[in-house]
């Protein structure tokens, strides 16, 4: 029961008025930063880090963690309302969030996202409270082969995501993977695919540049053409009764939320993986076990609940290796780690012993921040709905402006703004021909990690691929992934072999 005592102490720290205020401000700031396309928790935490020296370390980490949390909630807002994932963690939320908004269910989607985030966040904090040390050990057991196996699994859960046109789906995956290889090969230490020797390609193609191009500019061009003029973006309405209905929906999505919470948390713990693969895998698995897998991608609340609960759970999860091992599980926690060094704390195995107040104050604050983020989010939903009801000719240019600034803010390089426009135009032209775009975005997110872990493993094993099978953790994950990849392929083969029923 020592843990409960420590937790109680943590709550006492969290409930100090100054810390409560910091959490509230942090959640609000995070919510807005997360809702901006192009800006995510990384930016928020990095930008506000130098401002935290005015408060004691515990207050500072509480503030930054609240921003991290708020941004995770906020990411869903731009995914649902604009269809632009504000950060890689919110990509999966667009798959169903956007169709829901187009069907006029933006409010339901937003409420589902908020509650799922809350549940995911809370479950993960409880897991964090109870099982930090053993889980930290698990995180260490993941070396390059295990990471590659995990990436394989993430792809496997997504194999069925594309359209029915298989060559085009694979084309989209391949082009995303190739783009993820642009820039720099860490194994040989040489630049590669630097097109026309433009230095802007040296830092690679940022995921956000592709995502904002495709989902922001490409999608806008597409919507403008479909609407042929002045219509509203979606028939969004909001009444108190609909709000209640939204909450009632939570009951229907509990399975997806649970999958997201646990999967997100465990994947989030693994260093280097972080929240993005967690939320993608949660979406894929939720679709597999759902009673209505065919509804996914067309706007089902389950498809919003799974990734949203996962990315919040993962954001807590990724704090665990940071605190216990000093290894960041995501870019944001990497900056938090830098912050702790600025405040004079040494993250690592000794932190839980030497700085109990700091650790448990943070854990206590995570519970409270979750509540704040949920409340803020629900309170702001009417404002978001109001924005959606603006005339499209007003909303479209504003979104374009957001895309341009967001595309710049992601890497602070004009080169990437041009690249974003090119991707947007290409995505629009290709989309008209039924090329699915989501696989390319996923591929560029996961591609880099997949390649480096694959090649690191092969160097370790002298080039033998058996390394992915003969290590216990890597082996079992690889086998799972292969089964998931082969099963749908068999189905396609069957379809091809079996004579098609006569067309009516």
């Amino acid at each position, binding site marked *: 029961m020592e843990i409960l005592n420590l937790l109680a102490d943590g709550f006492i720290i969290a409930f100090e008025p100054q810390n409560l205020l910091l959490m509230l401000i942090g959640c609000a700031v995070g919510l807005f930063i997360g809702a901006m396309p192009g800006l995510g928790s990384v930016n928020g935490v990095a930008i506000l880090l130098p401002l935290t020296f005015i408060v004691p370390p515990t207050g500072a980490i509480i503030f930054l963690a609240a921003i991290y949390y708020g941004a995770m909630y906020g990411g869903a807002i731009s995914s649902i309302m604009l269809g632009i994932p504000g950060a890689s963690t919110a990509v999966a939320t667009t798959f169903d969030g956007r169709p829901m908004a187009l069907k006029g269910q933006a409010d339901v989607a937003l409420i589902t996202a908020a509650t799922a985030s809350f549940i995911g966040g809370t479950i993960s904090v409880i897991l964090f409270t109870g099982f930090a040390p053993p889980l930290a050990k698990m995180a260490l057991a993941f070396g390059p082969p295990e990471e590659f196996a995990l990436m394989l699994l993430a792809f496997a859960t997504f194999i069925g995501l594309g359209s029915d046109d298989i060559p085009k789906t694979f084309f989209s995956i391949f082009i995303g993977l190739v783009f993820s290889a642009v820039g720099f090969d860490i194994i040989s230490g040489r630049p590669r695919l630097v097109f026309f020797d433009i230095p802007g390609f040296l830092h690679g193609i940022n995921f956000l540049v592709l995502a904002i191009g495709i989902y922001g500019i490409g999608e*806008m061009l597409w919507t403008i053409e479909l609407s042929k003029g002045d219509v509203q973006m979606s028939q969004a309405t909001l009444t108190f009764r609909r709000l209640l209905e939204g909450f009632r929906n939570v009951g229907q999505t509990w399975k997806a939320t649970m999958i997201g919470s646990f999967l997100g948390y465990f994947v989030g713990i693994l260093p280097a993986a972080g929240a993005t693969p967690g939320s993608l895998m949660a979406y894929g698995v939720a679709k597999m076990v759902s009673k209505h897998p065919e509804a996914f991608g067309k706007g089902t609340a389950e498809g919003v609940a799974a990734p949203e609960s996962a990315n919040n759970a993962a954001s807590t999860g990724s704090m665990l290796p940071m605190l216990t091992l000093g290894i960041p599980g995501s870019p944001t926690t990497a900056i938090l780690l830098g912050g702790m060094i600025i405040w004079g704390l040494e993250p690592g195995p000794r932190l839980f012993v030497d700085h109990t107040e700091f650790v448990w104050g943070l854990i206590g604050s995570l519970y409270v921040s979750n509540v704040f983020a949920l409340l803020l989010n629900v309170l702001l939903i009417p404002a978001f709905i109001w924005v959606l009801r603006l005339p499209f000719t007003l909303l479209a240019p504003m979104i374009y402006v957001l895309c341009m600034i967001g595309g710049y803010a992601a890497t602070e390089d004009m080169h990437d703004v041009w690249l974003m426009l090119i991707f947007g135009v290409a995505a629009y032209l290709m989309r008209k*021909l039924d090329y699915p775009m989501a696989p390319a975005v996923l591929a560029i997110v996961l591609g880099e990690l997949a390649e480096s872990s694959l090649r690191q493993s092969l160097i370790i094993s002298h080039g033998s691929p058996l390394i992915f099978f003969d290590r216990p953790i890597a082996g079992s994950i690889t086998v799972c992934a292969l089964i998931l990849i082969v099963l749908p392929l068999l189905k396609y083969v069957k379809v091809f072999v079996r004579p098609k029923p006569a067309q009516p």
Partner: protein
Amino acid sequence: MRRAELSMAVFMAVFSVYLMYKSAELPIGWIPGSGPGGGAYPFWLAAGMLICCIAIIVRALLRMSPPSRSTEPYMDRHSLMLFVVGAGSLAVTIGLIRIISAYGAILVFLLFYLRFVGRHPWRLTAAVAVVTPIVSFFFFEIMLRIILPKGYAEPLFLPLYDIFL
């Protein structure tokens, strides 16, 4: 539609060949004892793209994919106009950022788009076009300290920095 389907696939096939060529700047083979070389990963993926493109072309020729069966035009006059105006105005705006600063470019873009595409009254147009850059300036530069490019208009912003930063 059918012609567009074929042209896009051919274009992408050429692009994948270019990617393969570009990847081959680094070793693309298997280096004994250490696995694939630096260019192998993008090279073989680009090869995969090429195969997909060939499959798309074959399916288009056999009229197996919906776009290759469709007789609708890929883009009618009206949608072409919308596309050119949309993408064109964005390109001009991004080009202007280098000259008259991001804020100036946004102002010009909003004036043009709201007035001539959206056909909103001048008063609303002007209000939105002026307020948006000002709000963006305070949100990005002052609050978030993300410095947007200023181009030749930079001297205009120096007094603002003296006051707010």
